[in-house]
């Protein structure tokens, strides 16, 4: 059977979740692997959630917020940016491919970009294979 990655996406409510809604309104088809979790701001994402998600069997994690300068709360996305950069280093140290975490700025008007991002991310993770704690990996 084909490997179907399990993906979680943290979307900020003001931009990226609205962008995902627009993808829906414009009926942009994309794979259903990623389960969205809407949070107030990308700044709300504690990097430990990403680790947690891998622990729970995720193969990839997307964090998406407003474009730099556009965060509804002024600067939450800048905090997210730094935290994710740091996290990627740490993941690498622990032998997890940092490409399993993706940070993407998607505005409320970018429905097409949202759909493309999910398509791209899903196929990238398919390439990378099962995540660090995915049971499938042990079975391999």
């Amino acid at each position, binding site marked *: 059977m084909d490997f*179907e990655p*399990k993906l*979680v996406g943290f979307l900020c409510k003001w931009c990226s*979740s*609205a962008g*995902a*809604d*627009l*993808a*829906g*309104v414009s*009926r*942009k*088809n*994309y*794979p*259903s*692997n990623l*389960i*969205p*979790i*809407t*949070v*107030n*701001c990308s*700044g*709300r*994402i*504690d*990097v430990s*959630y990403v680790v*947690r*998600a891998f622990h*729970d*069997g*995720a193969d990839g994690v997307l964090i998406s917020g407003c474009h730099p300068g556009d965060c*509804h*709360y*002024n*600067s*939450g996305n800048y*905090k997210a940016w730094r*935290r994710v950069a740091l996290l990627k280093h740490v993941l690498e140290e622990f032998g997890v491919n940092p490409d399993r975490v993706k940070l993407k700025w998607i505005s409320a008007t970018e429905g097409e970009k949202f*759909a493309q991002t999910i398509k791209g991310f899903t196929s990238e993770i398919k390439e990378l294979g099962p995540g660090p704690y995915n049971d499938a990996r042990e079975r391999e």
Partner: protein
Amino acid sequence: MTGKPRIGVFICHCGENIAGTVDVSSLAEEIIDYEDVTFSTDYEYMCSDPGQNKIKEAIEDEDLTGVVVAACSPSMHEDTFRKVAESAGLNRYQCEIANIREQCSWVHGEDGGSPTKKALKIIKGTVEKVKRNIPMEPVEREHSDKCLVIGGGIAGIQAALDVAEAGNEVILVEKEPTIGGHMAQLSETFPTLDCSQCILTPKMVELNQNLNIELMAYSEVRNVSGYVGNYEVQIERKPTYVDPDACNLCGDCEDVCPVEVRDEFNQGLTTRKAINIPFSQAIPSSYTLDTEACLGLNPLRCSECADACDADAVDFDESSEFVEEEFGAIIAATGYNLYPKEEMGEYGYGKYDDVIDGLQFERLLSATGPTEGEVRRPSDGKVPENVVFIQCSGSRDPENHNSCCSKICCMYTAKHAKLYKENVPDGNAYVFYIDIRAGGKDYEEFIQDVREEDRVLYLKGKVSKLKEIDGKLRVWGLDEISGERVEIDADLVVLAQSIVPSEGASETSQELNLNLGPNGFYKEAHPKLRPVESLTGGVFFAGVGQGPKDIPDSVSQGSGAAAKAIDLLSKPTLSHDPQVVEVEEDLCSGCGICVGQCPYDALEVNSREVAEVNEILCEGCGTCSSGCPTNALSLKNLTDEQLTEMIHATLGD
């Protein structure tokens, strides 16, 4: 609430919108087995009356403690369903929406994977969240019903008048000795050519006489603290050294004053005295002694003005007065300046006397100006026979100067050319332009009229060089339409100098924590849908400080900002979203990392060495909670526990 949660899940078909791709009845069957779900059902249209009744009845009959409505995006009907939950006795935050339409059924067709499986995961995650939500009530609080207007140009004047007319008290703070702003300097105004002062000065008088408005001219905002509804503001009233009540405008002081300096009102075309009144219709109607120019406010050095004043209005002992006031709303109307000469090497601006800017030309055209409305050039007072107007000087030039379009220059240049031709019918007017942007009402007709009736020669192209040769200003340019080079020997060159925000924009943005855009103009909360609001609650914009615009647009925006301020001030109390951050004091180490992470200054480390949240300032982004090393901070109803369980549910089978 004690006891085990009892969650009801309501799955909407949305006709075929959801049911077409998601197997809604199997969702209802599967979710009932999920922990803490005690009721589930699906229905054609949950948002319809019978749908809403189903939810209401179930909450009552099944004694539900929380509700998940799996339907369209929360931006559509979250409020609707929360009201339903409230009507059945739950707190509105005990209802959450699982978005299985926009983010699921609409994007995963038959070929698009497994929408039903995904919908189930989204619902499970939402169940995990809602069962841990706590009831919350909006925070209600009193507020001041006064409004502060910063800047007394036409935009600020209009805003102040509108707010005052609605019955609210207003303080208008103007930095300069008089209100009126740049409009007071203009001669006639496009497109109708009515005299600027004739339409402006009655408004200035009206403002001064309005009992709800206190005018604080020659004053500046020094310090702002607080938040929407309750801004504490310190205002400095600078000393004018003249008692406005005693001054009778005789002008004797001005006659004897021995100091002459550049006259700002005439854009440096004339001089003024150290003691002066900017123009005769100035409001407040009184003299001001400019200390930078004055020989020293010291009767031993010079006291000519005080000696000459029969009314005893001059008082050298005056000093700054600091006033503290509380305001509910603030309107920033700090206007513009022209892009400074020092920044412009080209076109000889600042080098040749007869290369002037648009506002200087307004003064030459104005009946109250240095030439009483006759167009005479600054260097020798000669009537110019050839005048070259250069548009976009410093605008639309991201490499060297400003990237933005100053918006009003096409129109005022056409006006200038027209008024010049009326003044000097035998003269020649040339306009160099990149494009003509005349988008306002009746504006295109105005331009056409200038081109055809007034016989002004429009040359599409940029000026490449300008040099003084034999007493003439030689202008080299290219006429892109004929493809030919042009060379004009001009007597006067008028630059449509780029509009830049006044220093007031950066000063005010620092005091009020406002964002500025790339060209330094105020940045709106939303460029299309919230154009007069800032992201700082209770602070609104009016006039050119927000972006280049003409008088009609400045006035409209003044009224728009006023309407927003009135709306806020007329509320009996203000309510604030209760989703804010809480501190668990036992876990807090007092490190203060959160303080720096908060974009709203809502956190501080208090005297007990623990973080404290100001619930009114906190906007609930939760950024601090994710940065707290000891997990002492948590965002209500989006806690670590909630997110962790949501992740877990989402990744389970």
